[in-house]
Structure formats: structure tokens, C-alpha cells
């Protein structure tokens, strides 16, 4: 064999041996002790790093749970499964998972329904658009429609429709809250998954101003809070906007029917039976 090659092999082999043993020694000497629980918890989490738990990421949350600094039921995307798994790992019992929630859009004033004050030409981001004359929508409470929420959603649950409004994919939404804090107009909020009716308007303007600029904005006419529509007070008036106090009340379907501006939205199918009963009740009351 060429002596040059031989000496190279010997030299490199020797160097490899030296470095290898050095590394092996360092690995033993400076080893970081990881609580095996942390690893297990990381395995149980959804792994989306969405921040819903209030920690900078899944690993940080796992550590906080393992050291008892955070409650075990904060991983919203993981849902009940994750909570149960963490409870087993941590040897806890009776940990209630919070009711799963999902994001809804409190505005129906898209490009067709709501007027624009001017043609916006800047950066296509809602928070940036707000810096230009406070947004191009004539309504100063409405959805700006540039899709910051859709971009921010870590689960791809939001798409912008042709009308310039966000649409939430209820299957994909995990209720992580990212879109809620992203929207500069606070158009999105989280509601319990079992809540079927919500109010889709945020405008605090008076009837006249609203009617001029949007065909689906709340007029603050107070019909939905009247005793006829909401006898048990499930809806109350807060300023110029109704607020739903009892999110499961059947009277909310009355409000859907009676609202002249069509501001109430039903998620999914309307329950046939109850609605019929409700209408009868309303008729009975009218007489």
C-alpha cells in the first residue's frame, strides 16, 4: 500500500479515536437529566406548537405540567384524549377537560353586504390595513377581509371566501385561540362546541348609521331582547349590541327568526323538532 495512504488512515483513525472518546466522556459527564415524564407528555400533546396553553410551545408546556406549574388540561387542540393521557402519566385523577370550543366569525358583512370607503392598495394584512385610514370598510367594527386570521391559524382551519369573509372549518378548528388574538377587529371568538346559535355582528353603531353601510349589521332594535322573543332573558342588551347570556337556550332560535337584520347565525342544521315547538310557543304568546 502507498505509504502516504497508510499514514493518512492511521492519523485520521487516531484523531477519530481521540475525538470519539472525548465526546463519549462529555456525554456522560455533562448529561442533562430529563424527567421521563416530560418526554411522555410531549408524546401525548398535539405537537402543533400553537400556544393555546399559554406556553411558548409544546415542550415548554410539557415541562410546566411535569413540574406542576401548569394545569394538565390546557392543550386545547389535544382535547379530552390528551388530558386523559397526561392524567395517567402524572398519576392524577378526576381532571376535567374543558368543554371543547371552536372559533366563530362575528361578522357577515362581506364585499357584497358591506360598503367600502375607499380602494385599499397596501399590504394584504388586516393589522397593516388598519393603519391606512383605519381600514377601508365603512363599518369600523367589521371584518377587514385581508385574511390575517387564515394565515395565522396553525391548523389551516380558516379560508377566505370570495366574499372576503373568513370561513371556519369546524372539523379542523381546535379552539386554540390564535385567530382570536390575531384579528385586530376582534371579529372572532371561541364558543362552546355545543352552542348552536351566535350573533354575527360587532357593530356598536346606531340603526341609521348601520343601515347606510351594511345590509346585515345589527340595528340595535332590541327585538331579540324583548320578553316576547327572549322570555327568560337569555339575550340581554349591552350598549348597542345584544349579548347572549344563556348560550344553550332554545329562545335563541326565536331571535334567529325575529331579527330583522338577520344577525343571528345557526351552526349546522336547525333542530327541527324544537324549532316547531318554539314557533308554537311564540304564536301562543302573540295571541
Amino acid at each position: 500500500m502507498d505509504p502516504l495512504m497508510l499514514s493518512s488512515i492511521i492519523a485520521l483513525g487516531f484523531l477519530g479515536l481521540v475525538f470519539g472518546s472525548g465526546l463519549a466522556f462529555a456525554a456522560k459527564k455533562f448529561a442533562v437529566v430529563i424527567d421521563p415524564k416530560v418526554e411522555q407528555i410531549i408524546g401525548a400533546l398535539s405537537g402543533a406548537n400553537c400556544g393555546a396553553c399559554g406556553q411558548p410551545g409544546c415542550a415548554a408546556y410539557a415541562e410546566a405540567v411535569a413540574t406542576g406549574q401548569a394545569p394538565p388540561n390546557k392543550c386545547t387542540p389535544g382535547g379530552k384524549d390528551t388530558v386523559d393521557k397526561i392524567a395517567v402519566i402524572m398519576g392524577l385523577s378526576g381532571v376535567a377537560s374543558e368543554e371543547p370550543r371552536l372559533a366563530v366569525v362575528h361578522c357577515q358583512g362581506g364585499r357584497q353586504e358591506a360598503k367600502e370607503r375607499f380602494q385599499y392598495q397596501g399590504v394584504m394584512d388586516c393589522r397593516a390595513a388598519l393603519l391606512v385610514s383605519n381600514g377601508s370598510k365603512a363599518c369600523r367594527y367589521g371584518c377587514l377581509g385581508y385574511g390575517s386570521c387564515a394565515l395565522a391559524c396553525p391548523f389551516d382551519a380558516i379560508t377566505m371566501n370570495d366574499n372576503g369573509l373568513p370561513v371556519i372549518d369546524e372539523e379542523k378548528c381546535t379552539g386554540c385561540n390564535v385567530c382570536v388574538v390575531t384579528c385586530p377587529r376582534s371579529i372572532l371568538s371561541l364558543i362552546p362546541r355545543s352552542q348552536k346559535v351566535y350573533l354575527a355582528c360587532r357593530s356598536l353603531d346606531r340603526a341609521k348609521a348601520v343601515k347606510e353601510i351594511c345590509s346585515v349589521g345589527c340595528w340595535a332594535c332590541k327585538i331579540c331582547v324583548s320578553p316576547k322573543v327572549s322570555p327568560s332573558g337569555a339575550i340581554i342588551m349591552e350598549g348597542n349590541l345584544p349579548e347572549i347570556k344563556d348560550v344553550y337556550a332554545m329562545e335563541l332560535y326565536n331571535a334567529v327568526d325575529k331579527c330583522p337584520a338577520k344577525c343571528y347565525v345557526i351552526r349546522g342544521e336547525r333542530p327541527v323538532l324544537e324549532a316547531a315547538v318554539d314557533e308554537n310557543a311564540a304564536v301562543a304568546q302573540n295571541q
Partner: protein
Amino acid sequence: MDLFKSGIFHGGVHPAGNKRWTEQKPVETLPVPSQVIIPVQQHIGAPSKPLVEKGAVVRIGDPISEAGGFVSVPAHASISGTVSAVEERPHPLGLPILSVVIDGDGQETWNPEIGFQADYLSLDRAEMLKRIQDAGLAGMGGATFPTHVKLSPPAGKKIDAVILNGAECEPYLTADHRLMLEKPEEILLGLQVMVKILGAERAAIGIERNKPDAIKRLKKVVAEMNLPFQVIALHVKYPQGAEKQLIRAMTGRAVPTGGLPMDVGCVVQNVGTAAAVYDAVAFRRPVIDRVVTVTGKGIKEPKNVLARIGTPYAFVIEQCGGLAEAAGKLIMGGPMMGLAQSSLDIPVIKGTSGILVLDARESRKHEEQVCISCAHCVDACPMGLMPKMIAAFIKKGRMADAQAYHALDCIECGSCAYVCPAHINLVHWIRYGKSELIRARKKAS
């Protein structure tokens, strides 16, 4: 002795001046509008508090609101008549703002307290400052920072140089140019008052070389009045009139990052503000009108006009021949730093240096492309920043990195976006990042 010079600052751009439309046109006093809309917030700082209610009868110069704190100034009636509403009205900054609406009586009755006082220079410092605040003075160059605040540096900050800003580097605008030609005495007397208040040793007026007639005129009047002020002819480069750049060019001093001109012993005031300071101290005359350049291809008869504060744009534009057919975009101020406006009902405020209407072709939109790393923006930035990096960080939501690249030092001059061949909305991105950073800082404190 000679502190002031015609130096240069780093970066900058050379946009087309477009001043020829109006620079030779003397300021024309607009007829008095039948109604004015006077917002309680026309300055940076706390909004002023309204003093009048619907039905109140006011004379020209009567205060209609009082300062809402030290960094705040009152507003005044600019016509005589009756207050017909105190309500939210459209405002140049976008959000509707509480405004006092006055229906004119056509009488032009003035507040009788307003009048010349010959010994005004013997007033003490505090009284002069009070008169300036009471007159509602806020930087007339467009930044609208309350003047009395700038003239009250905290104890320990010695001001040795007052710089009067007559650069008017914004394209199209000629309001300051005309003022320097037509009212040089007032400007210089105002400067004299400010120098007295600050106890400064030296003062100079900086004017870009594209206004040779103004330079000549001011030099002549300074000599005639025997005042110890220098008139400096500056290079023509945007943004020559930005505070920090002007200080750098005229004195060689660099304002530290996050600092103010007073940190390097300077105070910069606009020439229009100087004239208003003279009116305020010698006459107790509040800011009730200002010179506005109404220009652009979208205006039939471009002019410089003296308009009452609160005059709706629609009235001003009508007096300038109306909108041309091709009108595309309405801007308050100049094309580089001005604010796009969305309605003709918006009134002229203290900071309205111009009403610019671009035509449709000039205001067409360019699609944002990807950055080609040409570094034109880096060369152009007068603050020595790297706009492309800052904007890229902000786009990705990496606000801390943007801050580390000194996003907060951006003066929003628009030079970077002006030169970017990829048409990236650099300033808009950076403004957005700055607003998020400032909000986060407020939240933390």
C-alpha cells in the same frame, strides 16, 4: 463660530420636484366657508377637551376646546357663528374624531383680545410659552407636535442651536416656499422669539437650493432687520427636511438612536410654525388658518391658498377649479409622507401642508414582487437601516428581530419604498411592525 454649514446626510433620494405647478403662484386667501369642522385633535398628544356646546355663539379666535394636558393644545373657532354640533366627524387620520361644527354668520367678528402688543419681546419666558400653547400651536410642517413642548427642554438640556426648517423637500408642496417669499419678516421675528425662549446662541434657516428666490429674499431681510441669523442653502435631496437629517446636514451632529434633537443641543422648527409663533406672542392670535398647497394633475387649477382651519377639502378643491376628470387619489401632505384620504368631507387641520390629487395613472397599484436583494433600499435609507431585512422579519411576525434591526428608528420617509424595483410596500410593513412593537411596549409597562 460658524456652526452651520451646507453639509450632507447619508442616503436619500431625488424624486421629481413637481413644484412648478404652484411655486410662482402667490398665496390666495380663500373665501370664508359657510361651515367649518374643527377636530379636537389636530396635534400629537392628548386630545383637547371641548369647551362649547351646541348652540354656543363663537367669535373668530375664541377657544372652543382646552388643552388636555401638557402635551396638548386647544383649538379655536376659525369663523364667527353658532356651534351647530359637537360630534364625531371624519378626520384626516382615519378614525372619526370629536369635532366642533360651526355654522358661520358671515359677520367675521373677532375675539377683541387679539391685537398687537408692541413690547412683546419683554414678556418673560413662561408667558411667551403660555401664549404659544394657548394659541394652539402644533408643528405646521405636518408633524403637528405641540410647539411649546419642543420649546421647553428639560432642565439640564442646553440648546445652543435653533434651526428653522425651510427645506420643504416633499415634492409638489410650495406652501413654505411661498410663506418665505411673502412673509419673511414674520418668520424671522418668530425665530427671534424662539431663540429668546430657548436662550440659544445661534440660529439658522435652512432652505433647499431649488428655491433660490426664497434664499435671496431671506438673506436680504435678515440683513435689513440686522438679525444675527444665518441663511443656509442646502443640497436638494429628500428627506432634507426631516429633523434628524437636517441637523446632520447643517451641524454635523448625529441624533442618537431613540433620542431627540435636544440631545444634541438643537431644536428644529418649521418656517410656518415660526410665523405662527410671532402671531401668537405678539398678537395673541391663535392658529385659525394656514397656507395649503392644492396641487397635482387631479386639480384643475393648482394654487397656494390661505384656508381657515376646518374648511372641508371639498370647498378648497372647488375654489381651485374642482377635480379634474382623471383624479385618482387624494393625499393630505406630499406624495412621499402624506396620508391618503378617503373623503372630501375631511377638514383642513393645522398640519395640512398640502392637498394633493394624483391622477389615475399616477395612483395605479403595483403588485408586490419578491425581494431581489439589490440593496437599493439600504443605500436610500437616510437612517442607515436595512429596510428589506426589517420588512422581511415583520412579514414573518419576527418582531424582536425587527427591533434588533432598529425598526423603531425608521422615520417613515418612504425613500426605501420609492426606490424598490420589486415594489415592496416597505414602509407600510415597517409602520405595521412599529405599531406592533409600540403596542407591546405599552402593554409591558
